[in-house]
């Protein structure tokens, strides 16, 4: 009996330890809601970094044309709304110094260095493309899936779960249906197939997560627009998390300051 209790205690401790170090929260294989909750927790919830700084390379492939943008990005996790984000363009040279500040996902400021001017932009059209990439403003949002979608577990494979997410009535997200492939070990969505109102596969998002200080961060995200045959890849480099980024970074003043990079 004592021996059994010891083994049990070790197992329990081990489980707690794994959880503390950011291992997966072990949702049940048949519990789609729990799986989705775990994904949300990992991406923007309790298991996501409090803040992050990284440099980003965005490569946009449009037919024979390829555009490359280098961006320095900071983000801060907000509990009940989208993250605060600050992005400063490093390259190409013509747009170096352009800054975007997004507060809570809704309020956006842009700084245009050539005009020495900051402007607030209120855009209700989240479906528009971000910087002509295949990501829409909606796609880049960090809101929780569980708030907008009802999940159903479609397949339980060896390494992944396949969820079908159906948009909740009254939700205004762009995609009525998403087929999400979730890595079991990391509780991260590694692939999402996004369907449009006509039921066609509109876009496919693929992520490659990398562990940074115990957090699974998608360091490579590729979005393919299946209708237009274009794709955009975002590659995060030198990601630094939980640095205690303060409020003073997410201000218009920061937007104007030059970035060394």
């Amino acid at each position, binding site marked *: 009996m004592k021996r059994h209790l010891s083994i049990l205690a070790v197992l329990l401790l081990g489980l707690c330890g794994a959880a503390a170090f950011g291992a997966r929260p072990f949702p049940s294989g048949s519990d789609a809601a729990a799986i989705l909750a775990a994904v949300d927790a990992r991406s923007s919830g309790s298991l996501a970094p409090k803040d992050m700084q990284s440099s980003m390379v965005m490569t946009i492939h*449009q*037919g*024979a*044309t390829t555009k490359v943008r280098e961006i320095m990005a900071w983000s801060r996790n907000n509990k009940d709304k989208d993250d605060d984000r600050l992005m400063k*363009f490093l390259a*190409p*040279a*013509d*747009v170096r110094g*352009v800054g975007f500040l997004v507060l809570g996902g809704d309020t956006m*400021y*842009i*700084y*245009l*260095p*050539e*005009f*020495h*001017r*900051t*402007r*607030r*932009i*209120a*855009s*209700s*059209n989240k479906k*528009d*493309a*971000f*910087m*002509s*990439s295949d990501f829409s403003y909606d796609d880049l949002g960090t809101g929780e899936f569980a708030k907008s979608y009802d999940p159903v577990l479609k397949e339980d494979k060896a390494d992944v779960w396949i969820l079908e997410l159906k948009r909740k009535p009254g939700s205004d997200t762009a995609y009525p249906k998403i087929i999400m492939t979730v890595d079991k070990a990391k509780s991260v969505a590694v692939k999402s197939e996004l369907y*449009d*109102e*006509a039921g066609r596969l509109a876009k496919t998002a693929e992520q490659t997560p990398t562990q940074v200080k115990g957090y699974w961060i998608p360091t490579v995200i590729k979005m393919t627009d299946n*209708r237009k045959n274009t794709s955009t890849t975002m590659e995060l480099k030198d990601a630094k998390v939980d640095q205690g980024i303060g409020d003073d970074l997410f*201000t*218009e*003043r920061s*937007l*104007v*300051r*030059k970035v060394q990079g």
Partner: protein
Amino acid sequence: MARKWTAWVVRRRIPVLIICGLITVAALAGVPRLRFYNKMTDWLPKDDPQMALYHETSATFSANNVVLVIARPKAGVFTAETLGKIRTLTKALKDREEIFSVTSLSNVADIKKTADGIEVRDFLDSIPADPEGLKALAKLARSKDRYIGQVLSADGEWFALSVFLSDKVETISAVEKIVIPQAEKILGGDMGLFFAGSPSDGHFINLYTRRDLVFLVPIMLAAIILILFLSLRSWRGLLPPVLVVVLANVWLFGLIGWMKRPMTIITPAIPVLLLALGSAYGLYVVNKIRSDCDADRDRAAKDRRAMVIASTAAVVTPILYAAVTDIIGFLAFRSVKLSLIADFGVFAAVGLFFAAVLATTLLPALASTIDFGAARSGKAHQGLTRFLEAGAARVVRKPGLTLAVFVVLMVVGAAGIFRVEREVGFSGFYAKNSMPRKAMDAANLHFNGAYPDSFFFEAEDVRDPARLRLIRRAESFLSSIPSVSPPLGVPDLIEELNDQMNDRIALPETKSAVENLWLLLEGRRELAQMITPDGRQTIIYSKISDPTTKFCTDAYNRAETYFKSEAARRPVQVELNALSPDQAISVRAAEAGFLAEELSWAAQEGGGSAPAPAAIKDVLVAALAKELPAGRLQPEVAQKIRAFCFAPSFPFEASPAQMETIAGRLSDLAAASPEAVIPEAAAVAVLKKHLPPSVYDPDLAAEAAATAAYIAREARENMREAFLRAELKPLIPAGSATFEKRAAAVLYDLVDGLAVVPAAEAPAGAAPVTFKRADQTGYPVMTTKLSSSLFRSQIQSILLAMAVTLFLMILMRKSVVLGLISILPITFATVVMYGLLGIARIPLDYATMLTGSISIGVGIDYTIHFLYVVSEEVRAGHQLPEAIRLAFLERGRAMLSNTAAVTAGFSTLLLSSFVLLRSFGGIMVLSMLLCFIGAMTLLPAALLVVRPRILRANDEK
């Protein structure tokens, strides 16, 4: 040979009849596969560079495949229900892969300035439920000059959706199967719905042509049968020629169906053509058989088959001569570049071949089995004989006078030919109260037209600041052409965004500034219709509200002149700050002259009047030399500097008192110079002096100083632009919102540091501003090319037909003189007919251009038959006048019957719903009469006057 052939056919009459039956059944099976296809751009050869560009821009920008869905809802546009329907329809269409994009009230961008920025949304992001909200929405929409004439009419009663169809699909089919059904389903019946634009034209042409073919052909047939019955007085006599025509049509259209060749707008002319020519083949056979049987009734009763063989053999040769001439004449159309006409030629040739084969095989086979009835010598018959004899006598008596009259008529006709106009646009073909015509009228009146007119530019980077100015210049030029809607291009989007972000409607002077703004523009839906992702190609898009050929050709020529003259000036770009003061003044004056042209065009706005560029230039040069009004610039700069210092984005955190001091000191720097210049080094010094050391940062100070200097410069430029506009007001009073925006953008060019001027007026070594390609495209190009091609095709086809006919006639008659005389009647008919077109101002279009060829075919048939009898009678020993008289009697009846019948047939085209086919019917009636008169009058008169040697043998005896 003819006899052997006919004997062979008569001996095998049963198999011949069976084979004809089987072919007919097979052909009928092909008829359900027939389809109409009227896409004008497919008729032109693709090797023309401008047509190649047309197709390229259609594929890249879908610029040329636009359908306007226009509606006038009874309940009004700004009701929740109507707005909801517009939104639903927009969504339903734009999700389809056949649709490139849709612009409507629902998704047109609504960008407005707010206190500290801009707000971007789709116009119908939300639909108010309350009447006050709807009223406010209506007022807002009607205040936006970009909406009026695009998605909403000026009176607010009509709305439009611009549906750009993908070039990857068959556009007419997309209209028929997607756009129209969706619009009718979603918008409903009480909307007063219309569809305008080239793709919908193609749909309506298909629809109306199909209706006409089904409706008119039976009527035509009935009319012809009636006339033939009156002439032949026998059902058994008239049915064979009618059968030849009907079967020839069935075989031909069955073959077209099996070969999957599309039918076009002029395909309905083919049954008409076969009726005109094919019925003649059958009539000659039937007439000959009946009259021979009537002349020797005993022999006909004893040995009918021998009679049939002899009679048919007597007419087979001239029928085949006529058929070969016609067929080769129509096959010559294959050399014409307009595929519409080339295909018509082949169809006609094949149809005539079938008619000739049927007339010389089926009819003798039938005649040897069935009695075609006797030619009754009733009163009408005798009356006709007397008429023909009188006609012959009149011609034989005064051939010289007859010939002279015809020559005069031909001279008058020739004079009229030079007044012939052309019309190739579908818009003129519809009746006034028809649906497509009403749609076109609505589009022209409320939405600046439905037909695209675009300018295309290609370069390494079309977003280069200097190139953007030239593209905007082209927009200004395009806007000056009457009946052209205000153009929209990439410069407009950049100017609009610059205005919203920086309060100035201007094209930036540096590449970086353009790219800064471009970051915000990227991803906007409308960009796909204006610029390629790599930034190498762009179009300026506008519409025309006058799609007639005359206008389109004029617009085309104007644009050609524009591009040529612009290329000849070799524009260059100059950085004014790099020049000496004197050089800068000189270049500025040159720039003023260059921009004065642009202002003059812009002021003309759709064909109005404007001051001459020279006068505008003088005002601008004088204004540039003046100083800004004193006491206004510095306070403006001071106000903006203060706002900068107190903005949340000011790089330094300091107390209000410190900010106030800094703002004051910076303003003092501005006040120290008349042009309010803030030297950056001095500004840095101010910041260093008045900021706490713990806060001061040299990099941030440099940034802040640069911003202060920029603010001062911007204020100065804004003020100078306003001053220039005020100086111009006496010469160019306030215009439309569109003009004022254009004027502001042009005047800002004159106050910034970049100048684009002709090379001849620039310092040596200035960098050229070039485009790899710059050209026009769109409806005027297509129309002009079609019109030229139609004209060339017409000339070519007539000359070819004449040449081929002359050659064959010389060959057949073995006499050059006789060959030349043979083509006199068709020359007369052609010249007089086209002359009348010019005098009566009936345009040459797809249908009327066929009248020449048909006239030649009919005319030469009459000539061949007439000459054949004349030659035979001369060979039989008669003198020429007597031979002519006998030809009148022997062939005159058949020719008259044929002319009357075909005239009656063509007259039914006057019932067509198409103006095009109505004109064609009327012209063909005239043409048939001219052919008959020419063959029966001019031909014998010429023979009698010239007396070719080959016909003189008996005279000498």
